């Protein structure tokens, strides 16, 4: 490209590009210069403040480098200066579209450290809310992903239906997005009157809506062309790169923490783990659509069998776990969300390490987009389903 067009960008990004092991062709055939493009941090399709430096040959991607950290708030540092209970709301601000899942993971980790167990009713409430949140997260993903690929309309459909979930959250705990729904030892709030009825109504409401999304996209030729065989990642690569969640399952690995190492009350429900075959963008789309349906199944069972009883275990007012360390992880909508908590016996955690699925999954971007086109980078960023609040923490 004309250097008059790209000199400035070159200078800015040359350092950041240092690790791009780009195989430049031995002898350039015709004089084709590479173009270095800065996608983000202000870009409509990077889902926040992600900056991707692309090295292009024409429109073909030779290599990428993600520059992250624009949203870094030092969540782990904050944790060391808050009590266990005080840190709970901060957790919601990481993956803010799946705040309930985040809270579930943290509360269970601390409960494990305290060696207490939440009552069964609390576990059921947790499962219902978490699965609702999974649907909400997938709906948001679907809308934005479709928007990235150029289909505007699904975004509004999914947001319309996500609204119903947020209404349930709002009625349950007063907040829609950063819910802070659970407490260490169980749940703070009993379900409101009519909770079961509303959840059941939601189930019958949303099932046809999921069919509606699928009607718009699943057999749409343009959608197929844009997603099939795009951003492929093999199961071996996915495992080596630590990719989890729907991205891993779309590559054919039938692994879901809800089944593999059940937490909360998941061992009591009957559901399937949808998997894909090719590990391409389309399979990831199908897996997430199927997961939404499986979540509906889980919610239906949970809401029908929800037991009576207390919702809070006996937890001391001042939470002081014994000295020790624990790693606990759950299946968040985006993958394995782990908490590694080190306690020194005081009221504040000595160290909290969050294992964010988005952060690790994002690392696979480079592997997935090499050799594809610029437009595919957008599709792949969308399909990994990252939330920058969680990547940067």
């Amino acid at each position: 490209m004309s250097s008059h067009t790209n000199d400035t960008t070159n200078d800015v990004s040359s350092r950041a590009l240092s690790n791009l092991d780009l195989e430049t062709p031995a002898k350039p055939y015709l004089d084709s210069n590479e173009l270095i493009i800065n996608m983000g941090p202000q870009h409509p399709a990077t889902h926040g403040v992600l900056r991707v430096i692309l090295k292009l040959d024409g429109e073909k991607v030779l290599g990428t480098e993600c520059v992250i950290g624009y949203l870094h708030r030092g969540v782990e540092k904050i944790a060391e200066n808050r009590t266990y209970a005080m840190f709970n709301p901060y957790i919601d601000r990481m993956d803010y579209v799946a705040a309930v899942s985040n809270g579930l993971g943290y509360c269970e980790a601390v409960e494990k450290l305290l060696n207490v167990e939440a009552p069964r009713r609390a576990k059921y409430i947790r499962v219902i809310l978490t699965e609702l949140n999974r649907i909400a997260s997938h709906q948001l993903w679907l809308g934005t992903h479709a928007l990235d690929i150029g289909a505007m309309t699904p975004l509004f459909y999914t947001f319309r239906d996500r609204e119903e979930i947020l209404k349930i959250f709002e009625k349950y705990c007063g907040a829609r997005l950063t819910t802070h729904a659970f407490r260490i030892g169980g749940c703070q709030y009993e379900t409101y009157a009519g909770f079961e009825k509303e959840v059941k109504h939601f189930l019958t409401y949303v099932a046809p809506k999921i069919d509606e999304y699928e009607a718009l996209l699943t057999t749409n030729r343009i959608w197929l062309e844009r997603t099939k065989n795009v951003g492929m990642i093999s199961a071996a690569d996915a495992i080596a790169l630590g990719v989890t969640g729907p991205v891993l399952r779309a590559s054919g690995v039938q692994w879901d923490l809800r089944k593999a190492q059940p937490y909360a009350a998941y061992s009591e429900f009957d559901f399937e783990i949808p998997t894909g075959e090719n590990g391409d963008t389309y399979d990831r789309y199908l897996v997430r659509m199927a997961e939404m349906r499986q979540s509906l199944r889980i919610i239906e069972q949970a809401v029908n069998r929800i037991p009576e009883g207390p919702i809070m275990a006996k937890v001391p007012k001042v939470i002081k776990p014994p000295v020790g360390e624990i790693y606990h992880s759950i299946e968040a909508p985006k993958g394995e969300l782990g908490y590694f908590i080190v306690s020194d016996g005081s009221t504040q955690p000595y160290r909290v390490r969050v294992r964010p699925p988005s952060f690790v999954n994002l690392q696979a971007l480079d592997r997935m987009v090499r050799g594809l086109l610029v437009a595919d980078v957008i599709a792949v960023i969308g399909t990994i389903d990252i939330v920058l609040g969680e990547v940067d923490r």
Partner: protein
Amino acid sequence: MAEDVKTPAPAPPPEGEKPTAEKTAAAAPAAPVKPAAAAKPEGPVPVPWSSPLVEKYRSQYGSGLDAQTYLGQNYFSVDRSLIPDILRLLRDDEQFDYCVDITAVHYPKREKQFDVIWILYSFSRNERVRVKTQIADGASIPSSVLIWPTANWLEREVYDMFGITFDGHPDLKRILLPDGWKGHPLRKDYGILQQDQEWVQINLGIESGQ
């Protein structure tokens, strides 16, 4: 070094880091049930972890390695010198093919200030294991990027947050903080309000980011 790890100490011996932690002796084998608060039936105690895997490794490495179970979670405490080998063995022979996380913990009062922790998972065994080692400030540790590619960003984050360098990492640089930043925020001596004022003033053109 072997002695340190051999003692079945629960992971963090943060002597006097916080006032409340004063009582926690470094070599307290019994779980610190001191505060009356935690009304638990039994205090969880790290117990030795015995399994064929542990036996095998113990016979192979002897005193450099120690295996424990705490709250049902298994971990190895290994000597720094064994690090690349044992990780590679765990992946190649024991199918711990998924590196969940790499992180570190800072104990400023200790001689070897850092715990570096690998959390591993095996899909075929459906089993998790943690590998821990202790290193001193300024010391480096072999990178495991060649064992698990996912270690790339995880090690960069550890470097960014703790200043631990990984030998053989292809591109060890800061990941979350900007490149020119001074200090490693997750060290205990880094205050929660502390900032690299110079960086903020130069790059953001404001007096302070607070």
